[in-house]
């Protein structure tokens, strides 16, 4: 996978998590994954279409999700507020991925981002040669946060390049 597609997601996660949690964030691990994705806890998925196609899954374990939701909402969130925790994780995914998409678009990659959806299945699709996934683990004051990024660059056709000017 092209690293120039990945770097904006690392930078964005670092910046958005640090601002939202008001504490430093460190990247723990970055690995290539060929096996099918396995959900760890509460997950949100965002799909991209256009010159860059694929999906990003933002995933946190339940306890980290509770802490993240409490920090971001400014109130104590309990396990009974599962809907609020899922909403918080989804919104965080939206912000991180949206900021990365902004950087990529400003670098000349043109694509569309779909609204985040809760990722409920235990397992996702297996990565293929042209959509291998990069898994990033971030260490935050609220626990570990994971992002699984599987993107493919679709070179635009001559007609599309010509139409774009």
């Amino acid at each position, binding site marked *: 996978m092209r690293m120039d597609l990945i770097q904006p997601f690392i930078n964005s996660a670092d910046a958005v998590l640090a*601002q939202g949690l008001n504490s430093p964030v460190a990247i723990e691990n970055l690995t290539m994954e060929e096996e099918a994705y396995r959900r760890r806890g509460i997950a949100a998925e965002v799909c991209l279409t256009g010159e860059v196609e694929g999906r990003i899954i933002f995933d946190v374990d339940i306890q980290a999700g509770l802490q993240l939701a409490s920090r971001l909402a400014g109130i104590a969130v309990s396990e009974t507020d599962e809907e609020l925790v899922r*909403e918080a994780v989804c*919104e965080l995914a*939206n912000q991180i991925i*949206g900021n990365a998409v902004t950087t990529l678009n400003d670098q000349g990659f043109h694509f569309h981002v*779909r609204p985040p959806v809760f990722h409920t299945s235990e397992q996702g699709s297996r990565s293929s040669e042209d959509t291998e996934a990069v898994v990033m683990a971030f260490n935050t004051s609220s626990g570990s946060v994971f992002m699984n990024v599987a993107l493919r660059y679709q070179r635009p056709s001559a007609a599309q390049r010509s139409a774009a000017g």
Partner: protein
Amino acid sequence: MEKFAPVTRSEDGQPVRYLIVDDSVFARKNLARMVETFGGQVIGEAGDGISAISEYERLTPDIVLMDITMPQMEGIEAAEKIVRDHPGARIVMVSSVGYQENIVAALQRGARHFVQKPVKPEVLYEVIKYVMRDEGTAAQGAGA
């Protein structure tokens, strides 16, 4: 959360009335808490562009805070439709997707301003004051 000098409508000194449009309940709650620290009043919420248009017609808020990426109808299209029927509508786009093309498209279709998520309260406060500059006043000597 930090307290700000209240922004009020200059015509009657009443709180600025907001419609918040975002498909995320969590984001709507956060924005609502934020505008309340500006002395504002949230009079309605919507989760997509189509509901935003009908809620605008029903409530005629002073300001609409509008997300871009939403199901059914996206925020830029909804903003365009609202401004077409209500040229005085004050719509501030609030989105995590803030690339130049998107911002230009939103402004060309009638949005007054753009704020990128994650929203910093002090940034949104300044934008609200700017957008309400002809109609609103901020109390002197308090807050940000």
